[in-house]
Each structure stands twice: as structure tokens, then as C-alpha cells.
């Protein structure tokens, strides 16, 4: 396809193919599609005023194929532009037609303009590098940077004393003493069994000691439920919130 377009360097066809295979580039290197395009043109030593669009478009597409999708949009737009120019170049034009406008003209203009931006960037880079090597007085925002820019160097005693300081500064938390009062379900089971051994029927208040502690109430309740589950007794309640009846289970007695 190259023969359709006038290539100023006739000999670089195969050489270009070789270089483009060897040449592996991180895409983060390019600051944009124009940067990539300029790099290609420089690498191939192409005359910027006479770009072999077909070849460049192909190489451009090759390079961007490994782009991440979110970065690709701007590159794809350029790729589409290249392909369109390539198509325009292929259109036949009459001999001696003076008014033919090179479809590459706009691209060349943009490339030159971008090239100029790159030149200014070089100037800015040199100058900022020079300025970075000098400090003015007391930039507070730079002081903040220091903390993160280097690893912390601190000795163990320094660290420990710092920890100590922080701990002493910290408010003492209010501590509640929680006295463990384990429920005595087994003991309560013993009491209920002993009672039921004497009587077939009993009531809640019969097994509950006077002035019972909450843990005793809970233990007895759990004991009753446990024994009911095991089938040693039955619990009946005539209505809601009424005192319940405890009855020895005769069927378990038989067993």
C-alpha cells in the first residue's frame, strides 16, 4: 500500500518492519497520541511533511493495541483520523489538478504545533530542575512533605518513651467490675428433683426460696425447662402470667 503514497525514504520499508518488532515501549511513556505519533516519525526518520500514512497508521494501531481501555479513547480517535486520511489519499485524482489539498496537511500542522509544545516543555523542564535545586525560606507545605518522603528513623528507646507519653496522656477508661455469678442449673435440678420425689405436684413458689437472688431464679427456671425437655416433669399454665403448675411426669417414671 505504501507505493500509493509517495515515500521520501524509499529504502526504509524493511528496516522499518525490523525496528518496529524490536522496539518495545511502555505506553506510559507517551503523553498522548500526538506524542506517540511523533515518536514513530522520529524512530523511522520520516519526513514530517511527507508522512507515509498507511505505514504509520498500521504501526500506530499496533502500538495502541496493548492500551488499557480507559486510556485508549484519545488514541483510538487519532487512529480513526489516520485511517480516514489514508482513505482520502487513496482517492484517485486527476492529472494536473491544482486544487488538490493534501489530506495530511491538518495532521502535519498539529504535529508541528505539538512538536513546538514539546520544545517549550524541554525549556520548562530545565528551568524547574534548576529551581528544584534551591530552597527558599520556610515553605510550610514542604515541611509536611518531609514526613512522608523518607522512612522514619527512630531508636527503640525513643519509640517506647513516645508510647509511654501517649499512654499517660490518654484518659483512663472507666472500668466496671463485673463479678461473675455463674448460674447453678445442676444444683437447681437437684432441688426440683428432690421436691418432685416427695410430691407429684408443685408450684413455682414452692421451689423458689424466699428472697431469692436473680441468679437463683434464673437457675431454677432453666432447671425446670431442662427437666421438662428431658421429660421428667410437665409444666402447665392455666392462663398467661398465672403461676404455673409443676407435675411429675408419670411416663418418665415408668421408664
Amino acid at each position, binding site marked *: 500500500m505504501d507505493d500509493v503514497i509517495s515515500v521520501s525514504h524509499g529504502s526504509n520499508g524493511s528496516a522499518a518492519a525490523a525496528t518496529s518488532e524490536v522496539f518495545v515501549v511502555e505506553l506510559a511513556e507517551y*503523553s*498522548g*497520541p*500526538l*506524542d506517540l505519533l511523533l515518536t514513530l516519525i522520529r524512530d523511522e526518520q520520516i519526513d514530517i511533511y511527507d508522512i507515509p500514512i498507511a505505514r504509520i497508521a498500521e504501526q500506530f494501531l499496533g502500538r495502541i493495541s496493548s492500551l488499557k481501555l480507559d486510556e485508549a*479513547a*484519545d488514541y483510538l*480517535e*487519532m487512529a480513526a483520523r489516520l485511517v480516514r486520511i489514508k482513505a482520502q489519499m487513496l482517492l484517485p485524482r486527476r492529472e494536473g489538478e491544482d486544487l488538490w489539498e493534501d489530506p495530511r496537511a491538518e495532521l502535519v*500542522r*498539529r504535529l*508541528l*504545533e*505539538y*512538536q*513546538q*509544545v*514539546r*520544545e*517549550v*516543555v524541554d*525549556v*520548562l*523542564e530545565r*528551568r*524547574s*530542575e*534548576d*529551581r*528544584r*535545586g*534551591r*530552597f*527558599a*525560606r*520556610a*515553605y510550610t507545605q*514542604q*515541611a509536611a*512533605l*518531609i514526613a512522608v*518522603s*523518607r522512612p522514619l528513623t527512630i531508636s527503640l528507646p525513643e519509640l517506647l518513651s513516645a508510647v509511654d507519653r501517649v499512654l499517660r496522656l490518654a484518659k483512663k477508661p472507666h472500668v466496671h467490675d463485673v463479678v461473675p455469678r455463674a448460674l447453678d442449673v445442676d444444683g437447681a435440678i437437684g432441688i426440683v428433683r428432690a421436691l418432685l420425689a416427695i410430691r407429684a405436684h408443685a408450684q413455682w413458689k414452692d421451689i423458689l426460696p424466699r428472697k431469692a437472688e436473680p441468679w437463683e431464679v434464673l437457675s431454677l427456671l432453666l432447671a425446670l425447662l431442662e427437666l421438662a425437655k428431658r421429660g421428667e416433669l410437665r409444666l402447665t399454665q392455666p392462663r398467661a402470667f398465672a403461676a404455673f403448675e409443676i407435675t411429675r411426669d408419670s411416663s418418665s417414671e415408668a421408664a
Partner: protein
Amino acid sequence: MTPLAKLLEAALFASAAPVPVDALSLMASHADDGETTLDAALDELKAHYDNEGHGVELVEVAGGWQILTRPEYTEAIERAQLAARPQRLSAAALETLAIIAYRQPIGRAEIEEIRGVGAGAILKSLHERGLIDIVGRGEGLGRPLLYGTTPSFLEQFALRHLEELPRADELAIALRAPRPATPTSPVAAATGNGEAPARAD
């Protein structure tokens, strides 16, 4: 040193940012140091730092003057964690800055057209770093924000004024013909922006 040179030294020492020439000449007029002019006093102070072996020097930057440490001590200062070099800007950020510096006031769309890449995030971070500012709104759809460079840009790129950037015709490739409303030369851009206070000379 003359009394005025000493006064200027104290003033420059007290300020973290470059002291504008206007402020210095105001000080000089109040100082009433007979013969000595501001320029002479600045020259004297500069020569004092240069000739008598000082660790700092007097630098003209961003339309003013500033005392800066000499480059040979940068590493030692950084090692002692007294100051840290600011981070380098990415190539994309520098390109955007270069375009704004030459074409200001300029809108985002025009920047994106020149670079061929979206510029939103970069503009935001340049703005956060104080290198560019919104200087107005353009004509046309949506009245787009127009950006320009700040005095801090001049300071961080060691520029006395925007004219110090290479002129368009000094670059290897000439810039395209300017559009009617947009100045191409940094000179025009600077005056248009009210940027870079003019020096007395």
C-alpha cells in the same frame, strides 16, 4: 553595605515568597537612604552574596526578588530533612502548562485540541498546585473557563517574567498563525493577563 541594602536583605529574608519589585521600591522610598537607588542596593546585595562566599544567593524571579540557597547545598539540606524538593511534574502536566503559558487566556477545549488528549484531571491538579488559575470566561457555548499561569508558576520555573520563555519565532518550528483573539507571544499574554508585574527598568 549601605543601609538600604541591609534593609532589603532583612525584608527578603523575612519573606518566604519572592518580594515584588513594587513592594521593594515602596520600602526604598520610605527608607530615605539618600543616594542609593533600589537597583543599586539590589546589585550591592547580590554582589555581597556572590563575592563573599555565602550559602545563599539573591535571585530575580516572578517579577520580584528572593533569597535562595545555592544548588550545591541541596543534597545536604534534604538529607538533614530540613526541606524537600517539590515533586517533578509529569510530561503531560508540563505540556499543558506550556500551552497555557503561551496561549493564555485559554480554554480547556483548545488545550485538548493541541495535545489530542483530555485535560480535565491535569488542569485540576495544576490548579491545586497553584500553577494556573481561572482568569475569566470565554465567549461561546457554555462560557468556558479560561486558564492562565500564576506568579507561582514563574517562581517554580525560575522565570523572571513570561517574556523569558523562548519566543515563538525562536523555537525550531514556527507556531501556526495566531487566531484573532488569542495572543501567541508570551509578551502579549503577560500584559493581557495582568500577570508578571513590570520591572522598573
